């Protein structure tokens, strides 16, 4: 029987190309947009190499210094992190590194622009980079201010073409570094791992950063488990509050605060613009979910509409089928099959389309070094929702119609 329903549905869908096209377009477009945007969000926020341990990592991304006449909002300075981040309870490792700064190199008269990060040695343990050759530099390299560097694939290509880079030297920002390792490119929207060139902090041109409380650095705390988060936060904030405000060299500051955050908390703070104390990831997810619902609402409603009018339009068909022996159940099953087939076709189109769009993004390099792929989880959820509405919007009118006496259906009575 199911085979009959499917055959029948395909015949009807083929005979009504306009309706079929509109439905497929609505379903396909909605699912494509959802899957694509979800994939982009996922790529930005979910744990994935090199940030494999993101879900048990806290970061100090932000500090505030406030007084009646001053207010500083920025990322933390080296001194703030160095004084507060070490030996926290429940912690496995910590790392401190600078933001990616723009640096220039000159190679045989050609200018190469790169992003450079200065990091400690632990950075390479907190993050799991994919090393194409060589190895990271170590804590000792940082302690001794050795002029060594890890570079990404792009930088290797720029400087050395397709040959190996380990052991060779590069010039960047007026300094020379010996390359110890080459890693795969990391997309720019992954703030923590992103850079083209990484070098030890102590190779910095001067020592000023060592006395600064604000600006230029990020600290990451890898907890043994998420259970340790509350204690880490409490202890860190306690240490921040003990800092002698006079030491800040910022007259008028009365409160200094910095709060370890998860990556999504930091992202929601940035996106929603909420103050550090109030940020909750739930807000961000609620916003995403709200946007998604809003976005799905319109096509869903129009889909339901199309379905209802299509079934009403086919009242006389229902009458005929009843007159020749179709039971209520059979009729409902037939219409539901049609809708399910439509939804699955739309879903297939959407999957291919979003895969194509993401591959296009990757290929065009819309975002440097990004490797997008469709998010299967979200796609499955969206498809399930579409199926639900497809079935629901088919069942309800079909059920109502199938309850009519055949004469009324034949006459084309509306509900």
């Amino acid at each position, binding site marked *: 029987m199911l085979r*009959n329903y499917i055959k029948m549905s395909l015949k009807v869908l083929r005979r009504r190309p306009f309706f079929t096209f509109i439905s497929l377009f609505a379903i396909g477009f909605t699912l494509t947009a959802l899957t694509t945007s979800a994939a982009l969000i996922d790529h930005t926020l979910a744990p994935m190499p090199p940030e494999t341990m993101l879900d048990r990592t806290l970061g100090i991304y932000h500090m505030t210094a406030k007084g009646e006449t001053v207010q500083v909002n920025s990322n933390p300075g080296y001194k703030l992190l160095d004084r507060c981040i070490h030996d926290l309870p429940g912690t496995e490792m910590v790392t401190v590194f600078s933001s990616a700064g723009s640096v220039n190199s000159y190679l045989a008269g050609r200018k190469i622009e790169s992003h450079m990060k200065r990091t400690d040695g632990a950075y390479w343990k907190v993050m799991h980079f994919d090393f194409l050759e060589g190895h990271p530099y170590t804590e000792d390299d940082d302690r001794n201010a050795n002029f060594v560097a890890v570079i990404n694939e792009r930088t290797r290509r720029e400087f050395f073409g397709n040959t190996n880079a380990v052991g060779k030297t590069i010039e960047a920002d007026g300094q020379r570094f010996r390359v110890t390792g080459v890693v795969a490119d990391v997309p720019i929207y992954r703030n923590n791992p992103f850079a083209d060139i990484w070098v030890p902090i102590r190779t910095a041109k001067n020592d000023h950063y060592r006395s600064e409380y604000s600006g230029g650095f990020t600290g990451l705390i890898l907890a043994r488990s998420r259970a340790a988060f509350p204690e880490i936060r409490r202890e860190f904030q306690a240490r921040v509050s003990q800092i002698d405000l006079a030491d800040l060299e910022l007259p008028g500051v009365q409160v200094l605060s910095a709060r370890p955050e998860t990556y999504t908390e930091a992202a929601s703070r940035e996106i929603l613009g909420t103050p550090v104390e109030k940020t909750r990831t739930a807000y961000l997810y609620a916003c995403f979910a709200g946007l998604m619902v809003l976005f799905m609402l319109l096509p869903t409603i129009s889909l339901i509409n199309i379905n209802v009018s299509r079934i009403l339009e086919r009242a006389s068909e229902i009458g005929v089928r009843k007159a020749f*022996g179709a039971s209520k159940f059979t009729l409902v099953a037939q219409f539901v099959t049609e809708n399910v087939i439509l939804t699955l076709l739309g879903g297939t189109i959407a999957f291919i389309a979003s895969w194509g769009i993401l591959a296009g993004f990757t290929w065009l390099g819309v975002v440097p070094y990004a490797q997008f792929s469709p998010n299967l989880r979200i796609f499955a959820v969206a498809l399930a929702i579409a199926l639900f509405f497809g079935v629901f919007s088919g069942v309800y009118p079909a059920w109502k119609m199938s309850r009519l006496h055949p004469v009324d259906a034949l006459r084309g009575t509306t509900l």
Partner: protein
Amino acid sequence: MISLKEVEKVYRTEEIETLALSGINLEIDEGEFVSVMGPSGSGKSTLLNVIGLLDEPSKGSVLLAGETIQGLPDRDQARIRNQQVGFIFQTFHLISDLNVIDNVEIPLLYRHLASFERRSLALRALERVGLASRVRHFPSQLSGGQQQRVAIARAIVGQPRVLLADEPTGNLDSQMGEEIMKILMGLNEDEKTTIVMVTHDARLAEKTERIVRLFDGRQVN
């Protein structure tokens, strides 16, 4: 074969009550060819619909092939419509999304038949009405007479014991009407199919064994 006792049908709309059928007692034997006549609005279609389970009587009882119809669950009603009755409508009621052979196969879809069996039964029914060469056409590509012949093929494909025809020739010219009548009479003779036909055409009615006359929902003789 068909037995109606004190059948009444009332249509209620917001204000008016229409008595479409009242006090109908009718016995039709197996293999009879009966025509139903009467002025417009006298209840002919209503009578046919009640017999064919397309509508429910407000009062009285209807027996079809020995089964009382009232109060049967949907599934059993569907089964009786499928196996006992074939309907032919004045306005054909073919499904425009389906081609000729798919239309004819509809009654067989609700039986458990393999698709090749359905195909060959449908082809045989189409041969019977002289349309075997048009199986891939869609209804809109056929003339009125051809459409009605497709509808007849659909009504007879499942070999029902009873054929109910509501002005089968009403929308056709008289020559086409004669042809349809010939097909129906052939079925009645060869297959012993019981036929109840509503018609306005006295010449066609005279060819049948018995004429039931209705006036204002009542039988008159």
